[in-house]
């Protein structure tokens, strides 16, 4: 179906007519996004009695608004407390938290909100027009290519997250091995489970996330009585609305940066299973690679806060594309949405665009309206939200721990998972104190099972021939990109050093 301006106008007007529902959904979404353990998919599951009872367009509006808001909300604790609400915001901690420690929490929050909104709006608009083309991305990526993408992801993260590449790789592969806990995909025999039945399904991600980030951060916090440095505290106490305005100015001045990093998220999101965590790290790495000040990354650099947030929200649009076009959910939240849509009798796939175009394209119109409404409701709150860092760590740490511990319990209702979060918290604490970035461990845990599933599929299809991983042009291209990413930082730093020496030589 051709998209015309009147049709688009109708879609946006219809979405706007549900403004009250969008406001409720985005408020819930931002809140649950900001609490580790309460992802959008869990909340939609918990609210199934509502989404199954109401009309389909109302249910879809509610789910989509909640979904995009949870992406935006997950950046809030990442910036303020070094704890990502979801894996997708893990890359935001790298520069967001250092900004908060310097007393620039308000600015950092504004950067994340503007990047999320602009990135989400652009990708939702692009998705509207490029739906048929983007949906084909998934056709070119089979298990072979997915294995290379996963390895690409873990190596990128090792390079980005740690100052010491070797330590980054050790952390990443340690995470991958933890991710390999559980029964195997073919014979269902338990591996590395320490005899715990609760680990037969693999390492649960939420307790791992909560332990590695929240509990370990709470323990680190208790070494001091404030999150802020001395200068940071003074800055925070004197900060006013001008900080928010400065954040908006900084974000808009870098609009192009938001555009291209959000497109990275959109494309990666369209690949089923790739997810927001990889997209955010790829965007962060690409942003650093092409930056004029790569040395500022990791110290609280505005572009480094915006890139992962824009990509993270781009994934929101991207992951719904395979769901709508081919009926394959691009992520776990999309999978829950699939269940609700199927219950309402919606046939997903190409026919959806001819039988119910207002529903198929309406998803992205709802996203546009949600972002618009969210920006105007959340921006004024940044000044007050950022004040959280003024609270003493001796009060903050116990509050963080208790609510994230119950978050660890929530998805599976196992007390065991709270114990697991504690163990991961101690590992995370030691890792933080000794230069191993917890992000690399977490991403390893996330990618481990996906890597194994795709690896096994590729091997079985090829009759256990390892050369299958070099058998397609796309895979070879991805291997080349992986190799380039490994050597590019060294080449770029040599080039910069060379330029610096030339400069010094000229000055001398």
């Amino acid at each position, binding site marked *: 179906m051709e998209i015309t301006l009147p049709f688009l106008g109708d879609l946006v007007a219809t979405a706007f007519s549900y403004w009250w529902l969008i406001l409720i959904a985005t408020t819930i979404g931002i809140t649950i996004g900001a609490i580790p353990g309460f992802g959008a998919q869990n909340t939609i599951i918990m609210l199934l009695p509502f989404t199954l009872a109401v009309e389909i367009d109302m249910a879809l509006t509610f789910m989509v608004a909640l979904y995009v808001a949870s992406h935006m909300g997950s950046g809030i604790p990442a910036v303020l407390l070094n704890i990502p609400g979801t894996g997708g915001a893990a890359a935001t901690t790298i520069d967001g938290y250092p900004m908060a420690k310097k007393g620039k929490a308000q600015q950092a929050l504004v950067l994340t909100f503007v990047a999320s909104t602009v990135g989400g709006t652009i990708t939702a608009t692009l998705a509207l027009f490029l739906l048929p083309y983007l949906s084909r991305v998934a056709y070119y990526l089979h298990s072979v290519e997915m294995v290379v993408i996963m390895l690409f992801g873990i190596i990128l993260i090792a390079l980005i997250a740690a100052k010491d590449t070797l330590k980054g790789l050790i952390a990443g592969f340690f995470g991958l091995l933890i991710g390999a806990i559980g029964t*195997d995909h073919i014979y269902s025999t338990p591996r590395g489970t320490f005899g715990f039945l609760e680990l037969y399904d693999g390492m649960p991600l939420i307790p791992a996330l909560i332990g590695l980030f929240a509990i370990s951060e709470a323990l680190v916090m208790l070494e001091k009585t404030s999150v802020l440095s001395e200068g940071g505290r003074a800055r925070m106490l004197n900060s006013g609305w001008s900080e928010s305005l400065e954040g908006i100015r900084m974000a808009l001045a870098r609009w192009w940066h938001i555009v291209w990093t959000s497109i990275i998220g959109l494309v990666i999101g369209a690949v089923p299973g790739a997810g927001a965590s990889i997209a955010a790290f790829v965007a962060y790495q690409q942003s650093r690679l092409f930056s004029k000040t790569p040395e500022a990354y990791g110290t609280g650099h505005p572009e480094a806060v915006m890139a992962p947030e824009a990509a993270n929200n781009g994934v929101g649009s991207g992951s719904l594309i395979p769901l709508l076009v081919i009926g394959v959910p691009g992520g776990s939240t999309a999978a829950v949405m699939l269940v609700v849509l199927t219950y309402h009798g919606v046939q997903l796939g190409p026919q959806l665009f001819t039988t119910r175009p207002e529903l198929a394209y309406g998803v992205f119109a709802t996203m546009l309206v949600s972002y618009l409404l969210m920006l105007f409701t959340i921006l004024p709150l940044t000044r007050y939200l950022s004040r959280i860092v003024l609270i003493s760590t001796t009060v903050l740490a116990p509050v963080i721990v208790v609510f994230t511990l119950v978050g660890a319990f929530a998805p599976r209702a196992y007390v065991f998972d709270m114990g697991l979060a504690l163990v991961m918290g101690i590992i995370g604490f030691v890792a933080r104190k000794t230069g191993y970035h917890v992000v690399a461990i977490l991403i390893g845990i996330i990618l481990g099972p996906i890597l194994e599933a795709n690896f096994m599929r590729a091997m079985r299809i090829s009759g256990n021939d390892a050369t299958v991983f070099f058998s397609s042009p796309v895979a070879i291209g991805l291997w080349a990109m992986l190799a380039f990413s490994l050597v590019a930082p060294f080449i770029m730093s040599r080039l910069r050093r060379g330029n610096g020496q030339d400069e010094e030589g000229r000055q001398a």
Partner: protein
Amino acid sequence: MADQRHGTERPAPEQTGPDWIIPAIAAAFAVYYVISISALRWEAMISGLFVAIVLGVLLALFGLRTVLRLRDGRARVSFEGTFTGRDGLVRQALLLVYIVAFINMVSVLGFTLGVFSFLFASLLTIARLPWTRAALISGIAALTGYVLFIVALRTQFPSGPFETLLKPAVDAFRVAVGLA
């Protein structure tokens, strides 16, 4: 401390020792993992084995790098300054004790009383707040959590005396708003 010999500044030796804790844990886990899969079929063990081998190679490289740095004087073994001072350690130890207690008691106390007890004890002893303030903050936090997670989001948290007492009222409320 910089070495001023030969007129060039040499950076102070890096600290090593604490950075072996994670590799030690990783190595121990890798060994356990490999033992746990040793009797399995090829397909069940190959991907985990691959990761364990790569991890082993990385740990060997890390070991080699450390030995070379120690030999050249670019590193020294020291645990100094890695972990915090006495006050911080006491706070961290108390928090860990309360976490263990919370995990063990939450099934009996339930979500609301469990959260209240954890926060009250923590705020009293770690934050050293007056008991009235500690009780007020803990009470507000526990009740907010109860309303958000149990009443609104219907999360299956452990039930205790508080949840059991209010269950009929919450069920009636859900029926009234059509979320039963």
